[in-house]
């Protein structure tokens, strides 16, 4: 709780009786989730002064992987409250029920009053919550009745429709509608039933449509045709027209109910396509024969989906919306970067918008947000929301459609915490009030004092909040497990890091404890949150945090470079960018296109080549040689990581350089661009950095000297930048009064020296251009502009692969790595671990070699398919080292390329960059 004067205080420490009455010290809470939210909950609980808390500890967090002991334990205060469980949740339904029982047993026998499930899988499981409630324990989160009503998608949508909450327009009972049209009324239905000899009884309690549904069911059983294909075509046309009235630009999706895998689906653009589309999906689904169930869905096709959500809080009587979050930057259903979206932010941005198009676009956003907030409150109230939840919508242009409500706290809840805090005021005395900044604290408060809590006001904390999810993923954002963190720099100013406790130092030695990212649960390592007085400041801070974060270790791969690149790209375009949910894939493909080029770029070769072209004279050659590391070091660093390069291109394209045809035209002094590059790469000179992590001292001397030269030249002459530049080119002293001819001569020499060889920087934009990366852009309406190359599924696949070439096999067989006894199965009563025709993944165990009664599981570091097994029925046979076990077909074979071939290719690509030839 935050007091009126901004101090952190426990409720029972307050001087106000009213505030004291919200004391939380009676809570003893069992935390049943893991991940960053577990440590966050522990910290919040410590701060708000609950009695005590306990956690579950799974085998994967303790004994399955080395160096993966749950880091929270290093500072855990209640050692008796660590409850060992095989896992946090169950794999199947049966195991889940067992686990629920286990958790409740633990809670009961240890006298826990509350259970907190964070954003764990079970947090919105009505069955789980109900069991807890029945056991007399309070669930710190929405009650089971909320979870039940709001959690099921169809149920939630039904409620939403009744409440006039905007949902995706469409119908799911086209057959029934067609039948109703035919029958006109109840009598008509009866007659149709009679005509077809169907034993149908009208149910007066339900609607005509539902009766039609019942009659249809009977007809399917009796294979009688009540509705013809023509009827359906007509009905589809009429329903589609209704949708087009409102959404004239959208296409409409027809989807056969039993369809799947793209079969029985059509997306139609206009009325003339309807008839054929209906025919085709029914034919494809093989339901043209009379009496078949031909029902299909008609729904608005959302072309440009953005994922927006509203944070809700309520106590069952009141509900309050806490602004939105834009979570469109996601990949494989995993959100990556989440930004707050508030009315205050949008109003500010509308005020400052440079172009009318942008202003209009933002106004649309404001309208959508306002509507969503209103509707979410209506919905939350209707389902009796008595904790926190998230109202999830998809947004397209100025339309928004409710999808579902997540009845739990979400990973990205801190984004909202950055934007708003809650102000609770005593209704009887307006002078008594307190603030809550943590949503978890709010959950605790609601779980204990819910009904007594007055409706709070939301008070703006920051205009913008944002969260970056740090995941253990490779360059193409696929999970990469097994790395060990050796060191992670401490959080800096404006950085909030939820890292599960990985950063807690060894309490005895003060050293960082090595931690393995086993990837047992998910690839998320930490959440990095920041805030700002504007979204720009927010993103700048996030970029700075990512830039200065030192995360070192063995075999470590994270999405940190991706985030750094992406945020810089956005900063370079427009911070109010409105990506859709498919943007990340296109972006990744574009970065893949960069990777494809830079793998063959040899900076040294280019440097040498340029030397030949500019063999001025001895003096120049000396100066040039002196600038070798100054120029090539940051270039090499930039070109070693496509994501980093992507961010630099996004940030500075159009600002530091433009193109005239294929030629790069610098818009800035190249020395300043070089300085920008050093800063961007975190190689700028600061006192606390070690020498290898910043510009080499001899290079710093030149850079500083050069920058001060141009600065001095400007101040000495008092002339405009462009005039000075002109003079330096022409060689004519621009102001003989201030600068003597002798000094001017030196100035020209200095200019020549400082600019010499800087042209090599041109390869940066050139790579951006030839790869097509620079065509990825944002338009005035803040939507992404994506070239076809990066939207086409096939080329995306090829390009993304460039970021992480899969491990390759050298041969077409797998051999025994050691001598011993071969087994194809783990135990005699088990099936073989793999058989001919099966596909195997990298690292999957394929067979067992027993050596001295120890059973070693053997795997290989690549993926492929088993062609045949050389050890058929050979369990228990002795094999020798290197004896073939399987014939295989690897997914990726090594293409042998000679060193010469590689060199020729690299030379060709590298030189093409300076000659602007097409590769």
């Amino acid at each position, binding site marked *: 709780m935050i007091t009126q004067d901004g101090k952190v205080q426990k409720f029972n420490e307050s001087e106000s009786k009213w505030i004291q009455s919200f004391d939380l010290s009676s809570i003893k809470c069992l935390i049943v989730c893991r991940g960053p939210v577990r440590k966050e909950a522990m910290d919040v609980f410590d701060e708000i002064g609950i009695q005590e808390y306990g956690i579950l500890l799974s085998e994967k967090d303790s004994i399955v992987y080395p160096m993966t002991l749950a880091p929270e334990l290093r500072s855990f205060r209640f050692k008796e409250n660590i409850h060992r469980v095989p896992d946090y949740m169950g794999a199947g339904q049966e195991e889940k029920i067992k686990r629920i029982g286990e958790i409740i047993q633990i809670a009961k026998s240890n006298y826990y009053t509350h259970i907190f499930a964070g954003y764990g899988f079970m947090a919105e499981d009505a069955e789980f919550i109900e069991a807890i409630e029945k056991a007399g324990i309070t669930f710190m989160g929405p009650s089971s009745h909320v979870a039940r009503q709001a959690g099921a998608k169809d149920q939630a949508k039904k409620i939403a429709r009744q409440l006039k909450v905007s949902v995706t327009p469409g119908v799911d009972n086209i057959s029934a509608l067609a039948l109703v049209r035919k029958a006109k009324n109840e009598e008509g239905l009866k007659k149709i039933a009679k005509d077809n000899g169907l034993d149908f009884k009208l149910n007066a309690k339900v609607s005509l449509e539902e009766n039609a549904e019942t009659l249809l069911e009977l007809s399917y059983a009796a294979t009688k045709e009540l509705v013809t294909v023509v009827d359906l075509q007509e009905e589809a046309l009429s329903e589609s027209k209704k949708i087009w009235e409102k959404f004239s630009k959208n296409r409409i999706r027809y989807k056969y109910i039993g369809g799947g895998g793209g079969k029985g689906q059509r997306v139609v653009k206009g009325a003339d396509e309807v008839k054929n589309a209906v025919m085709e999906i029914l034919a494809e689904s093989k339901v043209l024969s009379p009496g078949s169930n031909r029902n299909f869905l008609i729904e608005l096709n959302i072309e440009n989906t953005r994922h927006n959500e509203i944070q809700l809080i309520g106590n069952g009587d009141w509900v309050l919306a806490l602004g939105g979050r834009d979570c469109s930057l996601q990949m494989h259903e995993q959100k990556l970067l989440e930004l707050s979206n508030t009315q205050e932010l949008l109003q500010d941005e509308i005020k400052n918008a440079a172009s009318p198009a942008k202003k209009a676009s933002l106004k649309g956003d404001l309208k959508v947000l306002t509507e969503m907030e209103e509707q979410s409150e209506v919905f939350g109230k209707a389902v009796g929301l008595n904790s926190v939840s998230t109202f999830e919508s998809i947004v397209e242009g100025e339309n928004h459609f409710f999808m579902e409500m997540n009845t739990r706290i979400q990973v990205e809840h801190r984004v909202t915490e950055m934007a708003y805090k809650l102000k609770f005021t005593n209704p009887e005395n307006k002078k008594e009030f307190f603030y809550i900044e943590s949503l978890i604290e709010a959950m605790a408060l609601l779980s204990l004092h819910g009904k007594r809590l007055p409706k709070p006001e939301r008070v703006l904390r920051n205009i913008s909040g944002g969260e970056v999810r740090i995941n253990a993923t490779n360059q193409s954002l696929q999970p990469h497990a097994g790395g060990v963190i050796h060191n992670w720099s401490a959080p800096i100013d404006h950085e909030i890091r939820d890292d599960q406790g990985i950063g807690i130092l060894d309490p005895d030695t003060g050293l960082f404890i090595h931690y393995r990212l086993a990837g047992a649960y998910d690839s998320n390592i930490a959440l990095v949150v920041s805030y700002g007085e504007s979204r720009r400041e927010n993103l700048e801070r996030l970029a700075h945090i990512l830039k200065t974060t030192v995360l070192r270790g063995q075999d470590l791969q994270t999405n940190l470079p991706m985030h750094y690149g992406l945020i810089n790209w956005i900063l370079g375009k427009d911070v109010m960018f409105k990506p859709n949910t498919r943007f990340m894939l296109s972006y990744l493909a574009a970065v893949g296109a960069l990777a494809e080029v830079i793998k063959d770029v040899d900076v040294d070769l280019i440097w040498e080549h340029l030397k030949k072209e500019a063999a001025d004279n001895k003096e120049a050659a000396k100066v040039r040689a002196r600038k070798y590391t100054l120029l090539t070091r940051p270039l090499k660093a930039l070109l070693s990581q496509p994501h980093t390069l992507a961010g630099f291109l996004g940030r500075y394209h159009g600002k530091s350089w433009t193109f005239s045809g294929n030629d790069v035209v610098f818009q800035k002094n190249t020395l300043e661009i070089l300085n920008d590059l050093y800063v961007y790469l975190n190689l700028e000179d600061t006192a606390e950095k070690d020498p290898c992590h910043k510009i080499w001292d*001899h290079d710093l001397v030149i850079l500083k000297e050069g920058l001060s030269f141009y600065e001095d030249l400007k101040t000495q002459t008092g002339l405009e930048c462009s005039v000075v530049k002109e003079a330096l080119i022409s060689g004519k002293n621009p102001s003989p009064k201030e600068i003597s001819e002798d000094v001017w001569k030196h100035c020209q020499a200095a200019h020549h*020296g400082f600019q010499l060889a800087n042209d090599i920087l041109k390869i940066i934009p050139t790579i951006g251009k030839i790869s097509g990366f620079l065509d990825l852009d944002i338009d005035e309406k803040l939507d992404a502009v994506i070239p076809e190359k990066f939207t086409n599924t096939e080329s995306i696949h090829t390009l993304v692969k460039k970021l992480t070439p899969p491990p390759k096999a050298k041969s077409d067989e797998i051999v025994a790595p050691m001598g011993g006894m071969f087994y194809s199965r783990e135990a005699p009563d088990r099936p073989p671990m793999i058989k001919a025709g099966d596909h195997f993944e990298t690292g999957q165990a394929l067979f067992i070699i027993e050596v001295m009664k120890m059973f070693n599981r053997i795997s290989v570091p690549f993926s492929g398919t088993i062609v045949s097994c050389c050890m058929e029925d050979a369990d228990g046979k002795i094999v020798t080292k290197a004896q073939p076990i399987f014939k295989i077909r690897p997914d990726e074979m090594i293409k042998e390329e000679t060193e010469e071939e590689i060199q020729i290719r690299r030379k060709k690509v590298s030189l093409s960059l300076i000659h602007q030839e097409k590769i």
Partner: protein
Amino acid sequence: MPESLILTGYFSYHLAFLKYFDLAKPAFMENNKHSSLKNPFTHSEGSHTKPHGLYESALDMGNQLIERPLHGGGVDRIQVQHSKDRMTVWERIKVLTDKEPNIYYQNWGTNLDGASLVTGILKVGNRDVAIYGHDFTLRAGSMDATNGSKLARLILMAGEHGIPLIGMNDSAGAYVPAGVGGLDGYSEAFTALRKISGVVPSIMLMFGFNAGGGSYLPRQGSFMIQCENTFFGLTGPGVVKTVLGEDISADDLGGPKVHSQSGVVDLVTNDEYGSLKRALRLLSYLPDNNRTFAPFTPTSDPIDRFTYEEEILFRKTFNSPTGMNTPFDITLFLQQITDNGAYFELQPTRARNLITAFGRMGGHVVGFVANNSAVSSGQIDIGAARKGTRFVRFCNLYNIPMIFLEDTTGFLPGKEQEHGGIVEEGRRLLDSIIDLRTPRLTLIIRNAFGGAYATFNSYFTGADVVYTLPTARIAVMGPAGKDYVYKDEIQELNRAYKENIKNGMPEAEARKTRDAGLAALSQRYERELMNPKEALSLGSVSSVIRPGTSRKVLGNMITYLMSKYQPSPMTGVQREFE
């Protein structure tokens, strides 16, 4: 040079020098495009017209001398060093400590430049550490008689003062123009390092490209850390090509992937920075010398905590389908018993059938030697024996108590091993354990068979206490032992089998009967002999401990034994073999 520079402290000095010398005025020539890297507005011409007395001249000379070693081979050479992504020796020192180094023999050498070697004492945290580092920018960091002597002095001083040594090796080898002098230099350094071996621990970092003596010398140290993109070896690939006609890259000849597998280096890192930081982490487990304990850090992790995870680990492993024969990673156990679960593995990418690691128990640094059934069944082969021997000898010399975690089916037999000399390597491990004088415990986790049992810190090799878990299987032989123990029973089964066939029983049925009998014998063997009972009855094992209490039992015993142990240098008879 302006006076103020002398006062600006050691590090800014370095930079100031570069600025002064490097941006020299361009030589203007007619009809030529001139080029300079100098801001004409800040470098005014010839303003040094202050009165210059004798004192100032002396001062100037002094300044030049003071700064000379800091320039190394000049900015061109430094640039070359940097272009290979390598730091200069001075920069490496800065990574180790932010405190000013205490440099000895600053101007040593005919050129008064330090003779391509920097020697000094650093304050790292609150410990004094002797360091040396080759300055590759001067004569490629090569050795001659002069700097060999300089190095020897530093090494001997470290030994005399009892402070650890960190070596930053970046040397092309002997300085060829120095002739035999270069070799003498190395000899002197070799000798000094051997003399302090066992007196103070040393950590050798391999940077750049080291050949010849530049490889031997560091390996004389206690631990070697090599980073990626470096090479060391007897000679480089060039010589190998000329002499032997072998075409091989430097990385394939002497890169980290080679040395980490042969066991020549103990740790591999990504880059120079990683090596320097790793050295400091390793140092936190090492004592200053052979007369003191390794740094003791009182622990907040209760020594008597019951470790549920230990129980769960065993239950899960031994109740799995493959039962008592299921391999498991011993470090999973190790992390349960050490203070805060922290441990530091040496040679972590090779011979992992035997784990050697430092960790703390109740605040005391302990050396762990553990059989790891997850790799090659935990059998001790040549690689494992070598790894273990080195580690045991180190702990012995430096008064570090040891805990042996035993789970091995024995030494690995076979042609490859015999031809490679397993008898000698196994013997070394055995002898190193016999010689061990520091407090030492054994915990038998599962398998302890035959010679491996006898060797692996058994009571009779001098263990202070041997504990066993209930899952232990202490026997002369593993499951194969049934052939000897039940020789008569097996003969009888075979006889019955033949008899049955003779009597007209179908072959398959006869075989089935015989195999059932054999399986029953196997089970009987496991039941009756594969357990700790016999060893307990003979006093070969002190006591059985409950899973979950390993930390408490081992930790308390280490604390007790350490309270009775005085750290002191090894004395006594030198044995015939190492």
